[in-house]
């Protein structure tokens, strides 16, 4: 169903962001029907980090992620039908309906798993990097995390071990300034830069605009190359912003927990709009191209929803399976 993708890398980045946006918006639209019955954290507004990062990775590079993983999963190449089927709780879901939105996996594209406990995949990602080292492989383990995960002690333990053993680990931190409704100011000291802390731990670090997909892709590419060349593990911090509520399908700016002017400023810096502007003079890009993408993607999404909706439930008699291998 995935139609011919543009060959031009920049166009691909934009199309992929658009696709993820449209998927998330479709989920948001459909969620209130009560068919996707699981806690669901949408990535609208944060697509550039996922897309830019995935573009700089090989398909075989393993990745782990968090509760907010749809974008990471899709950008890495995860199957859309199986994502939606998972949200619908169907046997065809990427985790056979056992995990839901917060537990995504697609081994065909190196998406090793996202989990729902903040910080809990950080050491798993470092362990992937250790496995890569032990097996003398060339891969890089990509570890997505949020600014909140930085507050879990296991982050420091994981990062420290990665440095001590110089493992091929790439941390991608999406700093959206919030953990649920709690701003960074309540959780971390004023003026602290997350990447400064991590640099002191001994990782190579940098901070970038997380709403500039081209910048993200370039930064990650450099980092991945450095790691493959045997450098230290890298931690990249990307500032970005979530458009919808923390968990669930709705906007929640009515709650007033984020300053209105921040919301407005960040929405004005929508990663997709910005990227389109940057591509204005690109020969392969135009309003029609966008419209074509939109309709291709809409069709893909419709098909995937139809698939997920009509797919069978897991057989209840298999409920106790998969406890032991």
């Amino acid at each position, binding site marked *: 169903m995935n139609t011919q993708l543009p060959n031009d890398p920049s166009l691909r980045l934009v199309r992929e962001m658009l696709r993820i946006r449209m998927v998330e918006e479709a989920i948001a639209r459909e969620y209130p029907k009560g068919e996707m*019955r699981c806690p669901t954290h949408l990535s609208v507004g944060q697509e550039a980090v996922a897309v830019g990062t995935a573009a700089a990775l090989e398909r075989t590079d393993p990745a782990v992620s968090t509760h907010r993983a749809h974008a990471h999963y899709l950008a890495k190449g995860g199957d859309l039908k199986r994502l939606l089927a998972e949200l619908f709780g169907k046997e065809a879901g990427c985790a056979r309906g*056992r995990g*839901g939105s917060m537990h995504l996996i697609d081994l065909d594209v190196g998406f090793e798993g996202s989990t729902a406990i903040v910080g809990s995949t950080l050491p798993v990602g470092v362990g992937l990097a250790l496995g890569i080292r032990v097996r003398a492989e060339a891969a890089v383990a990509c570890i997505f995390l949020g600014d909140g995960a930085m507050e879990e002690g296991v982050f420091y333990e994981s990062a420290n071990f990665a440095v001590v053993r110089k493992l091929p680990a790439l941390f991608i931190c999406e700093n959206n300034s919030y953990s649920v409704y709690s701003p960074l100011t309540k*959780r971390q000291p004023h003026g602290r830069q997350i990447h400064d802390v991590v640099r002191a731990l001994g990782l190579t670090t940098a901070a970038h605009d997380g709403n500039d997909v081209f910048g993200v892709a370039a930064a990650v590419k450099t980092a991945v190359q450095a790691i493959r060349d045997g450098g230290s593990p890298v931690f990249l911090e990307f500032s970005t912003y979530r458009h919808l509520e923390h968990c*669930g399908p709705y906007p929640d700016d009515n709650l007033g927990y984020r300053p209105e002017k921040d919301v407005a400023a960040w929405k004005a810096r929508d990663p997709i709009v910005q990227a389109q502007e940057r591509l204005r003079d690109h020969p392969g890009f135009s309003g029609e191209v966008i419209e074509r993408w939109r309709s291709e993607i809409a069709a893909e999404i419709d098909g995937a929803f139809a698939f997920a909706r009509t797919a069978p439930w*897991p057989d209840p008699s298999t*409920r106790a399976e998969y406890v032991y291998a």
Partner: protein
Amino acid sequence: MRDVPTTQMKVIEAIRNGLDVAMDLDPHLICYGLGIDDPKRIFGSTVGLAEKFGNGRVFDVPTSEAAMTGIAVGAALRGVRSVTVHQRLDFFFLAMDQLINNVAKWHFMFGGQRSVPIVIRLILGRGWGQGPTHSQSVHSWFAHIPGLKVVMPTNAADAKGLLLSAIFDPNPVLFLEHRWLHEAVSDVPSGDYRVPLGQARIVSEGGDVTIVAMSFLVPEAIRAAGLLARHGVGCNIIDLRTIRPLDWDTVSAGILKTGRLLALDSGLPICSVASEIVAFASERHFQSLKSAPRRLTMPDHPEPTSFGLTRGLHPSAESIADTVCEMLGLPHRFAPDPNAGPHDVPGAWFKGPF
């Protein structure tokens, strides 16, 4: 209940009310937890507290479950009681070292010189795809550990009364609230209302079988008793309320009264509170048992996410009633209520997603 005015309240309101009363009583009591002063206020249980008592006493914290637990210990040593809250028990696994090695043992390992009067609220999830990591209740783990007290309230009055007792108890208390009971309404005495820790509540006094239950299984047991009453079977239902220390006297009396025991457990089966109760019954009251004691628990696997896999996962009124009939050698079996709503939500009030 004593002769004090009561108000109809939801469990969640009763908790809020209990916190409010306690913070008035003890000017050093603090409350903290992720989101405690955010727009959702921990499902409403901390509404108004930050405004009334200020950020010095009611505050949001970093996502640092381990440290925040040890910090409660230290504050307690300095004479500052606390009520911490975790929106899912599942997050609290990060704090097990602090819980077991410090919270539970501080009093013992320093020869009784200091105690750690803290309360840790743990909210239990279920259904709406909470799945493997947002639905766990390891109350049986906690019951295993000397030094801890463990409370699992069932209704609004108990929630408030047990919470106030927990806060002013000199020991650490884990307060396990089930998300599905948050909106249950009952009469709640106003003011400093306390329900003693370690005392079970006899919910109904039937003579045929003793059903021991906790948390959301108490209402299920009551429904089961209703089903069974139609067939002339009388249930002696015990709501444990406190899982540790457990009210063995009331359990014993129940076993001696009916000679038949069904232990319900809202958690996993192996090495569970239900196991303990059945073991106790057969060890102490072997001669008084008229038939094999029984357990009904969730199955021995994690909770899956899918709506298609969670039906019948937990004991229900029907499965309880069926089991009682089996124990009594009665032929009756009970079909689920065809008019019941979806099995994965506690009621129409629950809109998800969390």
